[in-house]
């Protein structure tokens, strides 16, 4: 039984080995130990979605996972996903369509939208709403966010066809 644990996992492709207090959740570890403050802390009980990160390619709530549970896993945050260029088009669309105001929800909104676009490239407006339903935005009223995701999906679609 431990209150601290030695763990090793990758964050945005970089392997790290640390001793971590078991009670620390993943989002606090990312922000406070690694300085990756793009992942935000909102409600700390899974309601707001601001802490969304990817573990082994799947989106999860960073506040509902102990950092030590990431041992051996592949963690990706908004810093990694934006620096790789993976969501550059989506970020552009958010910018162009005013899909953010204060920006607090935006990193998680981008990761959640990207998750939908990878899984369901033909998502309808209703399916976009449904997939983003766990991410709160208190500024935009959501319409512009849905617009941005929808237009990015449309722009990606012919490119995907021509490549395949």
């Amino acid at each position, binding site marked *: *039984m*431990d*209150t601290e*644990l030695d763990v090793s996992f990758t964050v945005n492709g970089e392997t790290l080995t640390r001793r971590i*207090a*078991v*009670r*620390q*959740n993943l989002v*606090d570890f990312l922000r406070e130990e690694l300085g990756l403050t793009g992942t935000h802390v909102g409600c*700390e*009980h*899974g309601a707001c*979605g601001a802490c*969304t990160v990817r573990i082994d390619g*799947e*989106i*999860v*709530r960073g*506040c*509902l*996972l*102990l950092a*030590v*549970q990431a*041992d051996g896993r592949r963690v990706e945050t908004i810093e990694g996903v934006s620096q790789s260029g993976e969501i550059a088009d989506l970020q552009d669309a958010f910018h162009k369509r005013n899909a953010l105001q204060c920006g607090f929800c935006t990193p998680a909104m981008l990761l*959640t939208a990207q*998750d*939908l676009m990878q899984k369901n490239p033909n998502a309808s407006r209703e399916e976009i*709403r*449904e*997939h983003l*339903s*766990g*991410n709160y935005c208190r500024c935009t009223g959501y319409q512009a966010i849905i617009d941005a995701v929808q237009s990015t999906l449309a722009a990606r679609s012919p490119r995907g066809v021509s490549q395949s």
Partner: protein
Amino acid sequence: MKAPPFAYVRARELPAVFALLDRHGDTARILAGGQSLMPMLNMRVTQPGVTIDITRLPGLAGIELKNGNIHIGALATHAAIGASPVIRQHLPLLADAAAHIAHPAIRNRGTFGGSLALADPAAEWPACCVALDAQLVLASSAGTRRIAARDFFQGLYTTALQSHEVLSEVVIPVPAAGTRHAFIELARRRGDYAIVGVAALARSQQGKLCQLRLAYLGAGETPVLAEKTSQAFDLIDTFEKALTQAQSTLASELAPAADLYHSAATKLHLARVITARALKQLVQLAQPAA
């Protein structure tokens, strides 16, 4: 807030979990998907002496058809159940219900066994398991025992699971051919906690419904199997008469508690509304296509 200090063990096999539970009893908490335990830790609603992480136990996340039963491992996630072809084919009620559970990021972590063991009265899986007459397998150092879902749920967040036991899997008989289902839930926003919901099953014989089972969530301290209501829905009469009979019987079986936004009377009214929707869906499905 932040979680209080606690000790943590990452279990590698079930006997190790049993040993810890035998030693620590009520002060131990099992961490599965963590989508309810983690908020409770963060809000300091619970302060376990030791948290036993079972997420890496092998062999507990399967979804399999064996001898006419579907076996769902306790660690199967909501997302895995929602995406499973086996579930879609044999237990479509669960596939439909999965979409109502919170949001994608939570469905990726939250587990079937965790939801059942927590026994939130507004949760989807407990009501589905009662409707489907599921058997829950409870494992401990003394061996395993099975208990029917309707006996497992005993009160608000209270189950038959004892402090030395782990819910390891759920065995659900595949419904007979011709079984129809409906899962209807009302929530204020997509993915919110249910105001009230119903898991409904019935067999269709010559275009008529029989063996109706209605299990409600958000309508009492446990999932409620409304047997009198099911019996009151007698299609010797017209659909409307049968429905009225069923709806008026519902008050004798459901005891919904008021929440922040809905009085008990509103919830009972809404339970009647979704009963009508579920029965219409079942009857329409039972009609041969023109």
